[in-house]
């Protein structure tokens, strides 16, 4: 195997192509991309200087549903991401190498591209038992994460495990499962969901590549473009909610007619995600469309807000832009402690949404500061 080379130009040069060949290729590439001849120089510069961004994908306390979701991406398709957009140098799920050869892939990238690679993390990190609850290659998850995060240009937390701890962090959290933003001292892009929607995952990566920076984030470190609205506010069953028409038993007449699932425990009113818009599996469906209420799988601590089939208190008559706070507050007063805590975070995260025209995106580190206030 050839030694890694930095750029396409170097590759062409090594294969005996002239500078003229290279520029011809660039003008062809510019035209193919729908750009005018004036773009040739820019394309040449990019191909001369830019290699595919190296990406490391670490796996800790997880079920691999984030990886499984990712390979369902449809735009762009995952083969295009893997072969053309990025260089996925480490992922235990797909990479050919094993053992120390796999670890060498990771270590080489950390060394060679220090400060330039993108770090993706799937899974939470157990801090109990000196790290013995999750080891890879005899090293603790926390040890591996800290080392990899130190040199990363950007860090993405896939799913609820890496973002919030998820199922293993539910009470009594036997392993002290911890979200990654609490363990590393730099901003994290949280992409919650159990798992996140495949096309949202692809979009977050492409956003980094396309715009050269991360997407705008809310106070919980989530990309606003996907987590800025409640499932309830974008749900096609919303008119039934407003009209007071509900499913009241599984398999009843209302269920067959597609009425609102609020009475069956649907958490669409307290869940921020793109499910109702982007939908799942190439826009085939989303949970509510298939007859089950939203379980709120992209929310912090949603497992402890169960039971999932409990009928939430009804709040009617509020306009779309007010319901998040209103419903959050009502739940906080009326129901369980877990839900009350949830209402508080709902209000916190609502703040930047309300003033979204003036506020800059907040890095994840600020979340705790805001919570502390």
């Amino acid at each position, binding site marked *: 195997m*050839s030694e890694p080379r930095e750029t*396409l130009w170097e*590759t062409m040069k090594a294969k005996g192509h002239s500078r003229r060949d290279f520029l011809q290729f660039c003008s062809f590439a510019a035209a193919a991309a729908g750009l005018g001849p004036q773009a040739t120089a820019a394309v040449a510069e990019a191909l001369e200087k830019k*290699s*595919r961004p190296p990406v490391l994908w670490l*796996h800790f*306390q997880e*079920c*691999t549903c984030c990886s*499984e979701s990712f*390979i*369902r991406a449809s735009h762009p*398709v995952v083969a295009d991401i893997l072969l053309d957009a*990025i260089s*996925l140098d480490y*992922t235990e*799920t*797909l*990479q*050919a*190498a*094993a*053992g*120390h*050869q*796999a*670890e060498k892939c990771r270590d080489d990238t950390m060394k060679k591209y220090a400060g330039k690679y993108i770090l993706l993390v799937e899974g939470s990190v157990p801090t109990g*038992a000196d790290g013995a609850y*999750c*080891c*890879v*290659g*005899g090293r*603790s998850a926390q040890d591996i994460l800290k080392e990899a995060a130190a040199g990363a240009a950007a860090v993405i937390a896939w799913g609820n495990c890496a973002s919030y701890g998820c*199922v*293993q962090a539910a009470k*009594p959290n*036997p392993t002290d*499962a911890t979200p990654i933003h609490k363990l590393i001292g730099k901003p994290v892009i949280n992409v919650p969901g159990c798992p996140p929607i495949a096309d949202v995952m692809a979009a977050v990566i492409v956003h980094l590549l396309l715009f050269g920076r991360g997407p705008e984030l809310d106070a919980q470190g989530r990309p606003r473009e996907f987590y800025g609205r409640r499932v309830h506010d974008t749900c096609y*069953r919303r008119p039934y909610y407003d009209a007071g028409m509900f499913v009241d*038993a*599984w*398999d009843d007449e209302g*269920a*067959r*007619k*597609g*009425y609102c699932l609020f009475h069956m425990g649907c958490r669409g009113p307290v869940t921020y995600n793109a499910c109702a818009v982007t939908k*799942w*599996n190439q826009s*085939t*469906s989303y*949970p509510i469309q*298939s007859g*089950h209420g939203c379980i709120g*799988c992209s929310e912090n601590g949603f497992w402890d807000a*169960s*039971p*999932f*089939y409990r009928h939430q208190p009804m709040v009617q008559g509020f306009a779309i832009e007010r319901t998040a706070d209103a419903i959050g507050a009502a739940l906080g007063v009326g129901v369980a402690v877990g839900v009350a805590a949830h209402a508080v975070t709902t209000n916190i995260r609502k703040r930047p949404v309300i003033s979204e025209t003036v506020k800059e995106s907040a890095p994840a580190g600020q979340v705790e500061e805001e919570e502390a206030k």
Partner: protein
Amino acid sequence: MNKRIVIDPVTRIEGHLRIEAVVENGVVKDAYSAGTMVRGIEKILKGRDPRDAWAFTERVCGVCTTVHALASCRAVEDALGITVPKNAELVRNLMFCAQYLQDHVVHFYHLHALDWVDVVSMLKADPAAASKIAQSLSPWPKSNPGHFAAVQQRLRKYVESGQLGIFANGYWGHKAYKLPPEVNLIAVSHYLDALEWQKDIVKIHAIFGGKNPHPNYLVGGVPCSFSTEEVGAINTERLNHVASLIKDAIAFVEQVYVPDLLAVASFYKDWGAIGGGLENYLAYGDLPTRGYGDVSSFLLPRGAILGRNLNEVHEVNGKNEEEIREYISHSWYRYAGGDDKGLHPWKGETEFAYTGPKPPYEQLDVEGRYSWLKTPRWKDHPMEVGPLARMLVAYAKGNTDVKELVGAVLKKLDVPVTALFSTLGRTAARGVETQVVAHWMKGFFDELIGNIRNGELRTHTRHAWDPATWPAEAQGVGLTEAPRGALAHWIRIKDKAIDNYQLVVPSTWNASPRDGKGQRSSYEAALIGTPVANVDQPVEILRTIHSFDPCLACAVHLYDPDGRQIHQVQFN
């Protein structure tokens, strides 16, 4: 000469697993398998609403997803005496089949193939010759020279970029790779095609369960509703979508996956005598056709085979406390009544007691406790679970669909029936199973359409939905088959909440440490006798481990006879 190798992590699996083994004179002499991650989901379930358990337990695995939810719903239904409506059974069967098709195909191409297929060798292939071979195997329309040339060109550009991404540091050029460049090109081309196709088949989960991974389930039936008069229900458009997905799936399995499997296998027939391991096989069975309560109606039958004796299939009862028990002699747990006894899962305990080395560590104490997995036994026998176990039980019970296909595969490869008990047999059984399941799936769909045509729309049994109707105490078991083997959940309900919940998953059967009597489980047993041509590149160990389709991340060590690590291999 004895050598000890460390492979950690073993990749192209789900989760975190470590195996330690001894290689002597180029052959594995002993091996130890260790799970290195624990989450404690059983502890988390205590005190929760039993109707929510499917959602928690589905998150045990994002690869198997749906089958955990199914086992959980069945456990609760068993405890509360609920029988689901026929349409719910059919929808569950359809989701089960969709899971198998996606999972087995992804396993073959994306998790297992690189053990047999040399990606770099395909760059030397003649696309026209590859096309000719592919066309001789099946009528798949993409098998033209232009398509193969385009794929080769794309990979060439990728390799020449110097950034090899997921293909970096593979064992390319290892002499254990035997495929001609053209067959490697076909396989890599279909690696990409399969990556695209697998996204489609899981849309069946999205249609009935709202999303994949982790589709939604419901105790008492399924959450989706049928109506031929409503846009908001599973209507004719949705059903047509399912029909076309099934049709495409059958074409992909029969024209791409199975022909590729046989083409690759024909170059590796020697693997029909390697990696057999245990001689006992266990299957809980699934795909009921007359209700889950009628085991004789299952298309995948239930049973146990001992000593490779296909003339006798033993009955299996998940409720019999003498049959299935979990041991912890070599696991990091503590039992209140003593660590030497096995516990039936209804009485199971999950108390962490880590006694291993503090990370970072070089090796585990394989003579003592060395895994987060417990060790399940059936009547104290170690059992292999998975596609091979299911196909052997079906074969031994005389299932005609399975017998016919197994016979055809043996004939095509020109190998004896004993070749089934091997690494090759395990991989072939998965292909046979995918093919029969694809056709059964069509049958379930046709039956569902028939029911709807006859006005049968029920999808949920309501009578025990309200906890107020539940007894003060109840217990149940839900059995199913994950793609990688026998899976069961046991639940005890007390005062309307979960009092105890225990899962025994396929990888616990296959990947567990040895028991107190020193009996090895599947991985450890199967590795014994595996040849290793080059201890620096133990691709042969990966072949056997991957043939089980492990559901946890693993690592392999090879020891000298004293158990001392003499060489930790650096793979360069």
